[in-house]
């Protein structure tokens, strides 16, 4: 049975990637949008661009994983295609994990392009092990966060609107463009309740070459956020079909 579920997860992700991701709208949302944001901040306050690279990568992770979630979940719910997946001999959790995996793979490709491009252009030498330990769980967190928010609502436009709320909140509060350490204490507490803070901080450690003792801790925290998003998402999707 687990083999059936694994096969289901793989082929659902593959189908979503083929059908919805790697299309102009998802690519522009996943990669052009974060670059534009970062350039806007850079032009507003020119300084060392290297300092903005972790924020750029974090934003690429955030935007690319959630770029097509509303389509792969809400659009398919609306036209009945998601129901077709639920008729297959796999668990409902496998269907949702397949949807999440599609976002993770797309996010991984986009993030690799941005990270490699930035490293080559700016002559940076990030620690690859640390990058993997931060990027992989982050991709899982934001793709499953997207899935959770999408199953909460019915329509694609509702999902898009709802997804923008955490996206914008996290851009400003998680150290993407303004260091968390310089924020007022109350906001700092709030920042540490948001997953992107650990992504940005972990990426900084990956590029700075400092001690990096916190990396395994951040990996664990991000894994916790992933579970916090995926478990209720599965439960809510199951409830929709009761």
């Amino acid at each position, binding site marked *: *049975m687990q083999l*059936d579920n694994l*096969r*289901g997860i793989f*082929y*659902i992700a593959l*189908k979503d990637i*083929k*059908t*919805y991701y790697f299309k102009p709208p998802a690519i522009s949302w996943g990669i052009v949008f974060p670059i534009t944001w970062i350039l806007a901040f850079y032009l507003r306050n020119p300084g060392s661009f290297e300092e903005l690279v972790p924020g750029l990568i974090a934003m690429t992770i955030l935007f690319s994983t959630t770029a097509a979630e509303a389509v792969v979940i809400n659009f398919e719910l609306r*036209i*009945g*295609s998601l*129901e*077709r*997946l*639920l*008729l*297959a*001999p*796999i*668990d409902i959790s496998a269907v949702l994990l397949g949807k999440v995996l599609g976002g993770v793979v797309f996010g991984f490709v986009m993030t690799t392009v941005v990270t490699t491009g930035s490293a080559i252009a700016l002559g940076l030498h990030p620690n690859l092990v640390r990058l993997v330990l931060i990027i992989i769980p982050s991709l899982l967190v934001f793709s499953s966060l997207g899935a959770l928010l999408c199953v909460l609502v019915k329509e694609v436009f509702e999902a898009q609107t709802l997804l923008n709320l955490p996206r914008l909140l996290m851009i400003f509060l998680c150290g993407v463009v303004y260091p968390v350490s310089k924020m007022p204490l109350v906001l700092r507490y709030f920042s540490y309740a948001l997953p992107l803070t650990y992504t940005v901080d972990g990426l900084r450690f990956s590029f700075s070459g400092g001690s990096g003792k916190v990396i395994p801790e951040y990996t664990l925290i991000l894994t916790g956020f992933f579970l916090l998003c995926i478990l209720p998402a599965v439960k809510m999707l199951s409830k929709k*079909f*009761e």
Partner: protein
Amino acid sequence: MENVIYVKELTKRFGDFTAVDEISFEVRSGEVFGLLGPNGAGKTTTIRMLTGLSKPTGGNASVLGFDIRTDIINVKKRIGVVPEISNLYDELSGFDNLLFMAQLYGVPRAGRRKRADELLKTFRLHERKDGLFRTFSRGMKRALTIASALTHNPEVLFLDEPTVGLDVVAARSLRNLISNLRRQGVTIFLTTHYLEEANILCDRVAVLVKGKIMAIDTPQALKDKTNKSTLEEAFMKITGLEPEVLAIEKGK
């Protein structure tokens, strides 16, 4: 003949509303069984429960010997389902849609492409195999949706309103396909509100009204029992809709 679907006092409630009310019936191996009823009778809800899309509120049911409450994955492996809406993927070709279904249902890798090709030929869609689903006509979409439910050679096929929205030619062609499947030994459970269709296709029918089964028998036996010459008239009498229809006709 052994029973492949066994339903005992199956019930589905949505809050205070009872959509399916303690229905019981059996479907025999190799037969075409029709569930007839007006809109809102509970036909689709019954199919959704038997295929694992909706959990029953009460009662029991098994398909091919597997309990739908505790062993639904084993049920799903052995059945094909054609929902009322043709819900395949617009951005995939006819061939890719079938291939995806074969992958999802675990058809062995070596046989997937062959099976998809076979089905496209059977359903006379081979010439459009590379065309996107969204470019198909309504009849072609329906045919491909049925084909997609057959990729894994199911023993039981559930069809929810298979010919709804189709023109006369497409509906006739689809009925021929259903008859062919039956000859191949596939047990067919279909819902319809086209009574002539049920009369032609079904070995036995059950009449469902407001979630309750009012009668269950062969179309001929229902006509005989009600002393009517057509299944439509028999249906009107069984469902109690006859006076309403007569009143409308008088009004004319």
